[in-house]
């Protein structure tokens, strides 16, 4: 099976996610971009796992999914509480942790 299309698709999704993370200011959208990047990587893992006949890549995917789920729980909660306190805040407004 030819791997090229899946790898190209993965790279594309990753690039979309990365650019979205850099250009958008809405925290929720930035968060979704991170998820995009993670899943792009998952796609790449799975396709390499198929071509190399190594189940290890799929195991890693499961790890990533579990960690991403945990991250979503924490991240969404933070974003939600920020939005309650400061509606319409963008990522650039939240600079309280500057040195």
């Amino acid at each position, binding site marked *: 099976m030819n791997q090229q299309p899946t790898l190209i698709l993965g790279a594309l999704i990753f690039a979309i996610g990365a650019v979205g993370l*850099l250009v958008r200011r809405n925290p929720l959208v930035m968060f979704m971009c991170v998820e995009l990047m993670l899943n792009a990587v998952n796609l790449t893992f799975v396709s390499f796992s198929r071509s190399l006949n190594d189940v290890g890549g799929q195991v890693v995917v499961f790890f990533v999914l579990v960690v991403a789920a945990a991250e979503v729980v924490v991240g969404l909660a933070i974003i939600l509480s920020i939005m309650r306190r400061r509606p319409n805040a963008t*990522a650039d407004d939240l600079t*309280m942790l*500057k*040195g």
Partner: protein
Amino acid sequence: MQHALWLIPALPLVGFLLLVVGGRKLGDPRSGILATAMVAGSFLATVAVFVDLLGKPAEERALTQTLFTWLPSGNLKIGMGFLADPLSVTMCLFVTGVGALIHLYAIGYMKGDPKFSKFFLYLNLFVFSMLMLVLGDNLLLTFLGWEGVGACSYFLISFWHTDPANATAGKKAFVTNRIGDWGFMVGTFLTWTTVGSINYLDINAAATAGTIAGATAIAIGVLFFVAATGKSAQLPLFVWLPDAMAGPTPVSALIHAATMVTSGVYLLVRLNPVLLSAGWANDLIAWVGAITALVAATVAISQNDIKKVLAYSTVSQLGYLFLAIGTGNYVAAIFHMVTHAFFKALLFLGSGSVIHGMSHDQDMRHYGNLKKYMPITAGTFIIGWLSIAGVPPFSGFWSKDEILAGAYNFGSAGKVLWFIGLITALLTAFYMTRQVIMTFFGEEKWRNIGTDADLVPVTAHAHADSDGGTDSADAHDDHHVLTPDHTPHESPWTMTVPLIVLGGLALVGGVLNLPFVDKFELLKRWLEPTLAGEQELPHGATLFGLAVVAVVVGLVGIGFAGLVYNRKRIDPALIEREEFAKGWWIDSSYAWFMGGPGRVFFDGVAWFDGHVIDGAVNGAATLVRGAGLRLKRVQNGQVRSYAMGIAAGAVLLVGFFVTRMGF
């Protein structure tokens, strides 16, 4: 009975801790009894170890016991270990034995003092530290004890600290001792780098095998001798000991005559295999010892304070001990150390008894005819006097004679050293006779206080009755200034019993090591396993001749003093010269130097420290701080700029791998 070993230092430590917790509640005299019992128990434990050692063949007489590893640090593992061999057990026997007697004496002497229990707390701590010093099987443990006794010495000298003079004397002792401690520390470092161990058995084995040799051995010998000059009051660091007499008299007897000041001697004898290969360090030790003995003896002639005479006498006798060590005569050093502990503790306690009976006046010019009022004190004091003056068969004669005989046999300079020792013996006999006559014989001079214009006026003594409203509860109703109608009294039994016991020991102490017949040289045969080599003493007729000369010289000193002070044929002013009274201005020239040129130098050092050393440290801090202030701008709190940084970094990394690593 190896298990009794740890009990020796543990008992005084327990006594100390109990007194810390409940000393005030126990009060006077129960806290003193507790402290005395602890030291007496420690003495019994020492006797048990001693008997155990006696039952073994000579070469197996070394017990070690390591309780736990004290400092594990890389190659350096220091155990809390004790070493009991003939040398350390001999020291322990007289430290705990004489210590217990002095504790008993102090119950009487300190009666009614507001800080009674605190006094015994310090005394027990001192005995504990001293036993750690003696029993420790390595240099660091000895150093622990060394500093411990130094601290206790400081506490006890300035015990009546409400008088600024006492507090200053304590500080002087402490600071002077620190100079010597420097030698101890550097000596320990040097030993560690040379041998790789600071355990005595390893050091002495290495010295015997020749690992420590040449310049290193000399350096180690000199450094530990510097330590000893501080603790054992030798030139040039002896100035603290006469001032240390500001402490209560039992302290002077225990710490500044019998035990602590001999720790320098003990240290050097402990390391005697190192000294054997230390070349000219031995000559240095012998000469410093001999000159100290002579100088201190001359100073003692002109002192009028009863305790100051004994203080300079102690410095002088310690000089003898170092003379013995320098001439390789270690048995004689230990022998004289033991007999000196007996008779000097006796003399100090006797002087304390006199001071106690004379309203704490210490000026001998106010004494006289006290034998009538204090027969026991006078009798025992006279035994101590004959012993230190070297009259046979008292103990001091045997030990001093052995030191002089050893010096006589010491190379080309030996005759000179022997002659200095002989002159010192003459002076010793002289000033001790002077003291005995002024104190116990002649007229009752305090009767003339106020009426005789020539008599030195009485100054209020430095006793700290004033620091609390306890005078009414004070058992002495005579803690006041000496007056003409004063009637001296004999001291209570707690004070006279130690005097009698020590008097007996001073009388017969010589049997420890009788010359001429090998079989009677008990101490020599006992100490032999711990000594790497022993100098040969003169034999037969020479030894006998030297002894006769020493006795004649001693008797001349006594007779001459009798002529001056009893018969009054010669004006004492001719002999009590000013340079003697002022201690050859050694002390005052130190003070002048430290206040004048020394001060400028120290100020310079302080400036260097403040500006250059601190400047370097502060400069480094400023540099880091400035860099941090600039770098913190990167942390601007904008998540997207961090993401940009990560992305750029990832791109750069990928670029690096692709172009450089050839993927």
